[in-house]
């Protein structure tokens, strides 16, 4: 196919028609080299210390075909801020002499053992290189022949393009990481070679052997070989942690059942169930020794790790350790995808048929009425559940048992307890109001995000319900338990509505649209209950008018709850449905007994004024010279966001033409009409002008009129032009309204209907939907919980949480609730905290063992725990007495590799030695011996080495020698060696002069 194309390509200047696959392959490589601008690369300044680890690496990738064998060519290079400084003046005449940066890199001492890097970087110290390897799924390059063809092709391409970047080919299986490479430039050619075996050959098992391999390879023509520069690193692994119990013993959920307390229900659990720390690696390094000052051969070794000048530590953690919070959330979110209905899970639900809920109400009525003698009563929910004998239990285990259910319901409805026990009922609500405010200082950004969560205020009813559901799902029977608790909750809602008990732990007033829909619905239900209470009180009031006038007291709405739940004398309770300012109530109450003088004036109108709130400034009626009164008016209907949406939708549906607009105005004029009627009732004989002066004063225009006759000016008022237009909406509404005080008007807000709608909404939710509605609070609570752990977590936690919160705020608001990702991030954050805790406790336990010295081995456990928690609490503050241990732990979590100050002789070094020693003991000793050892007498067991054998030994050998001939220029030579129990690798970079061969 390819050849067909090329045949037609007659206009190409280069004729490829006769080119072989091989030629095309080279041409393609050259093309890529040009694309990457390799031929024009300038010499860069030398690498700085650790730059290969800390710098920013980039990659570029291209496909290359050899016949129909596909290769991937990737360039890895360090993105350097410092632009290559071109020393123009000096280099001008020797441009072709630009040295490859690789020549510099392979003998640089600044970047040995980078903590995180491509293996070729680790082996050869390169900052810029290219790898050619077969694409995944393709064959591997196994034969030497093929390797040679590839290398020579690369060599041609390099020479043709004058590119100085080393190029490698990957041979054999990818996992073997076997590379050969080549680099040319500035008159030096470097060959990258490799030996890879599964076992360390006997004669190479020490520095001496490796040195002789190196020197043999160099076959230096000089008599006197310049001394080889050696850098050595030994790695020790620690994965035996049994001497350190994992501090986070999982709470035994079944235990809690016994004394499950509200505080437990209101909290999500936190922490890892297993030790998230897998292994600790200790790197001991001897940097840049001269070969003749260190002895390491098959008989003797100078390399005692405790004497090594540099120590560093790295920790490997479990990828996804089992964590409590994560587990809770995952299980809860999983319910979102369940399809079962309440019915399917619980069987026939008696609550659905309201005729037998009567029975329940009666039982509860008895309960709610305080008894003359305080007796310990079975609590509310117990009665509720007993009153429903025909609740089918599908399976015993899946449903919450009665006593637990009681506890949960008490947690959700704390004030019903106080009704029974005689506690101060209002306390809970006050607490609640306070705790909404109180939350310690958070980073501003994080705080902003958390505030913008569309959930519910912490510790509100909705919040508690969410957490309780989460608990119930995890520990008491999954989805069936959720369905059961929801069923109970809905019954309780109905009970409260029917029996005039307001809901606890909710802010009062119209639904707050900043919160989630469920919370708004509960607030709305609360509004309905309050209105109902007020309405019924008023009805009582009217049937016993004598008691009413005397006891008109103004109450803040918060008190109603208390009054209502505490006292049976409901007559004392007062709330005026009509009043929008309760303090004004008295004036409205006075009306029935209004002074006779006013009555006489009003006689003309044959009307008694009704429903006055207060006088409107000093205004008087235009026609009667009577004070103008503001009437008591109905409050507009509270709305939840879904109702509001519906309303807006209806208004939009009416269209944008004038008829639509008129209809829209008419639909919304209920409130205006109601106000007009109330106004008329309060101000008999008033006209529209009077109404406008109160209601829309800007539409009453007063002008000075000069009167010719008396030579004086007089103020004259009239309606604005828009109010004067005949037949306008206002005029029409005024003409059609009768004088009716608010109290006798049709309710603008039908609390009964709204309450039933909400109860129906709640009852018809499937468990999956319930979970869906509760998730915002659960996520919110989880994030707050993480926030609480900021002091004991890694430094980055606060920033991470900010990002999680920002994302959560978006997800909660969006219509498709994609919680999975948030969940993952939360789990990760939790695991990170667990890592910090685990490390801290390991170090602290060791430390206190060292301090307590010998003797009492069993006891320190307690003290250690205390200490470690103390340290954790002190957290990041500097005044800790942990001598930098916490600091060290944080660094470990943050950086790929952390230096141990003072190496083996420093405080941390000693701690680490102790850790290793204990692990050694624990693997080598049995029972009693162990115990004795942990008392600190390890010197009693000299036969047990303090450290295990190293899991890896690395050597970097470097020198500069003239090659290939004695008169050649000195060129850099390097050999990297790694010796581990199941791997032996030599990576050599051998250079030679291409000019003087």
């Amino acid at each position, binding site marked *: 196919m390819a050849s067909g194309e090329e045949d037609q390509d007659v206009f190409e200047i280069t004729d490829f028609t006769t080119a072989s696959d091989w030629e095309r392959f080279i041409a393609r490589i050259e093309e890529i080299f040009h694309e990457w601008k390799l031929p024009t690369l300038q010499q860069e300044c030398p690498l700085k210390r650790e730059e290969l680890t800390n710098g920013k690496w980039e990659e570029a990738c291209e496909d290359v075909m050899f016949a129909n064998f596909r290769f991937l060519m990737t360039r890895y290079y360090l993105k350097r801020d410092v632009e290559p400084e071109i020393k123009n003046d000096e280099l001008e005449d020797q441009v072709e002499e630009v040295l490859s940066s690789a020549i510099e890199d392979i003998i640089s001492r600044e970047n040995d*053992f980078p903590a995180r890097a491509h293996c070729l970087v*680790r082996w050869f110290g390169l900052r810029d290189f290219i790898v050619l390897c077969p694409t995944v799924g393709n064959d591997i390059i196994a034969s030497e022949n093929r390797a040679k063809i590839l290398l020579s092709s690369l060599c041609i391409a390099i020479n043709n393009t004058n590119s100085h970047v080393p190029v490698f080919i990957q041979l054999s299986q990818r996992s073997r990481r076997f590379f050969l490479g080549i680099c040319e430039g500035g008159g030096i050619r470097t060959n990258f070679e490799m030996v890879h075996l599964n076992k360390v050959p006997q004669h190479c098992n020490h520095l001496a052997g490796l040195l002789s391999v190196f020197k043999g390879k160099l076959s230096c023509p000089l008599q006197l070989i310049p001394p080889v520069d050696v850098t050595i690193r030994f790695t020790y692994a620690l994965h035996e942690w049994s001497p350190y119990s994992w501090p986070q013993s999982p709470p035994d959920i079944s235990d809690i059942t016994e004394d499950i307390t509200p505080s437990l229900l209101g909290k999500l659990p936190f922490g890892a169930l297993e030790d998230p720390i897998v292994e600790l690696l200790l790197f001991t390094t001897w940097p840049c020794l001269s070969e003749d000052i260190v002895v390491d051969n098959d008989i003797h070794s100078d390399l005692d790790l405790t004497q090594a000048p540099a120590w560093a530590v790295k920790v490997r953690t479990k990828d996804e350790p089992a964590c409590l919070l994560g587990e809770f959330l995952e299980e809860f979110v999983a319910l979102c995808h369940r399809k079962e209905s309440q019915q399917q899970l619980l069987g026939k639900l008696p609550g659905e048929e309201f005729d037998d809920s009567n029975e329940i109400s009666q039982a509860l009525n008895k309960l709610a009425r305080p008894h003359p003698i305080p007796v310990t009563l079975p609590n509310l929910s117990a009665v509720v559940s007993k009153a429903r004998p025909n609740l089918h239990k599908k399976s015993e285990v899946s449903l919450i048992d009665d006593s637990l259910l009681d506890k949960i319901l008490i947690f959700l409805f704390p004030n019903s307890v106080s009704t029974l026990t005689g506690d101060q009922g209002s306390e809970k609500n006050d607490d609640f109001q306070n705790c909404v405010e109180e939350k310690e200082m958070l980073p501003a950004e994080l705080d902003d995000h958390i505030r913008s969560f569309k959930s519910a205020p912490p510790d509100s009813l909705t919040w508690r319900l969410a957490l309780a559901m989460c608990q119930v799902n995890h520990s008491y029977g999954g989805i069936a338990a959720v369905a059961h608790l929801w069923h109970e909750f809905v019954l309780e809602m109905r009970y409260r509505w029917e029996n005039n008990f307001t809901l606890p732990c909710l802010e009062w007033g119209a639904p707050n649209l*900043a919160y989630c829909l469920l919370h708004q619905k509960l607030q709305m239900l609360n509004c309905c209950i309050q209105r109902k209470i007020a309405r019924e009180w008023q009805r009582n009031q009217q049937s016993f008018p004598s008691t009413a006038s005397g006891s008109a007291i103004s109450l803040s709405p918060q008190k109603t709850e208390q009054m209502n739940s505490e006292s049976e004398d409901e007559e004392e309770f007062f709330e005026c449905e009509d009043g929008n300012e309760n303090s004004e109530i008295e004036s409205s109450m006075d009306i029935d007994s209004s002074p006779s003088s006013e009555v006489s004036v009003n006689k003309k109108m044959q009307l008694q004024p009704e429903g006055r709130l207060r006088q409107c400034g000093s205004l008087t009626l235009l026609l009667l010279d009577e004070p103008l009164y503001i009437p008591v008016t109905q409050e507009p209907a509270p*709305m939840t966001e879904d109702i509001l949406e519906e309303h807006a939708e209806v208004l939009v549906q*009416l269209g944008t033409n004038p008829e639509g607009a008129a209809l829209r105005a008419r639909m919304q004029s209920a409130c205006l009409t109601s106000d007009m009627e109330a106004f008329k009732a309060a101000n008999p004989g008033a006209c529209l002008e009077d109404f406008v002066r109160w209601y*829309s004063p800007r539409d009453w225009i007063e002008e000075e009129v000069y009167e010719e006759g008396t030579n004086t000016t007089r103020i004259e008022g009239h309606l604005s032009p828009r109010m004067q237009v005949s037949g306008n909406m206002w005029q029409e509404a005024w003409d059609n309204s009768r004088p009716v005080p608010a109290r006798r008007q049709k309710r603008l807000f039908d609390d009964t209907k709204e309450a039933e709608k909400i109860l129906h909404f709640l009852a018809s939710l499937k468990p999956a939907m319930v979970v869906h509605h509760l998730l915002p609070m659960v996520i919110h609570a989880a994030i707050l919980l993480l926030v609480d752990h900021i002091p004991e977590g890694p430094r980055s936690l606060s920033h991470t949480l900010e990002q999680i919160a920002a994302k959560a705020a978006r997800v909660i608001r969006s219509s498709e609730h994609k919680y999975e990702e948030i969940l993952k991030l939360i789990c990760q954050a939790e695991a990170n905290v667990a890592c910090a805790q685990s490390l801290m406790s390991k170090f602290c336990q060791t430390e206190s063992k060292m301090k307590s010295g010998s003797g009492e081995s069993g006891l320190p456990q307690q003290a250690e725990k205390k200490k470690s928690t103390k340290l954790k609490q002190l957290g990041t503050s500097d005044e800790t007495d942990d001598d930098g241990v916490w600091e060290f732990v944080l660094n470990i979590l943050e950086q790929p590799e952390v230096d141990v100050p003072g190496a083996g002789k420093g405080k941390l070094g000693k701690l680490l030695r102790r850790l290793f020693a204990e692990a050694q003991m624990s693997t080598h000793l049995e029972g009693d011996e162990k115990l004795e050892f942990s008392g600190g007498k390890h010197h009693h067991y000299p036969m047990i080495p303090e450290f295990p054998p190293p899991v890896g030994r690395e050597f970097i050998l470097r020198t500069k020698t003239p090659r290939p001939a004695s008169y050649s220029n000195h060129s850099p030579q390097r050999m990297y060696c790694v010796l581990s129990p199941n791997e032996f690798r030599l990576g050599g970079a051998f250079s030679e002069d291409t000019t003087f061969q």
Partner: protein
Amino acid sequence: MADTDILTTLKILIIGESGVGKSSLMLRFTDDVFDPGLSATIGVDFKVKVLTVDGNRAKLAIWDTAGSERFRTLTPSYYRGAQGAILVYDVTNRTSFQKLDLWLNELETYSTKSNIVKMLVGNKIDKEARVVTREEGVKYARKHSMLFIEASAKTRDGVQCAFEELVEKIIQTPGLWETDQRSELRLSDGAPTQQGGQCGGYCVI
């Protein structure tokens, strides 16, 4: 007029004291008429207009609210989800200018988008009895980071321009109107990662 080439639908609010000319401004913009006999608004009113700004066609759903005190418990419910708000005062009436603080506050409380674009419009500049100077308006707008223009619903001065400017600004504000959620979350670089994308060297033996 296919709906398909419409970039986005924007919700615009018009708020301000009663009688400053909110409904008149809306009517001038949507139907290009001035009707002195327009009733004082009851509750909220609503109109739609498609506007092309910088080659982007945006459908505007304009919500005109009643300014009278008594409707104020009702109207803020409709602030939800608005991307832009036009605050109107009457240049011949100082009270309407002084009450702007209250309207801003109202907006702050009830609008759900924190970065809602606000425009201040001084209306009725055709009238002679001006009492609020242009400079005062400019100053107020600057103080509260709003767009500003003076206009007359009667003579159509500045009306079209006001809406266009507002829409342009909304479209330029990232995150205000797009429905897609782009910003990707990356965990901080400091978090310990085992394999840093590169084939981790020897240390992971």
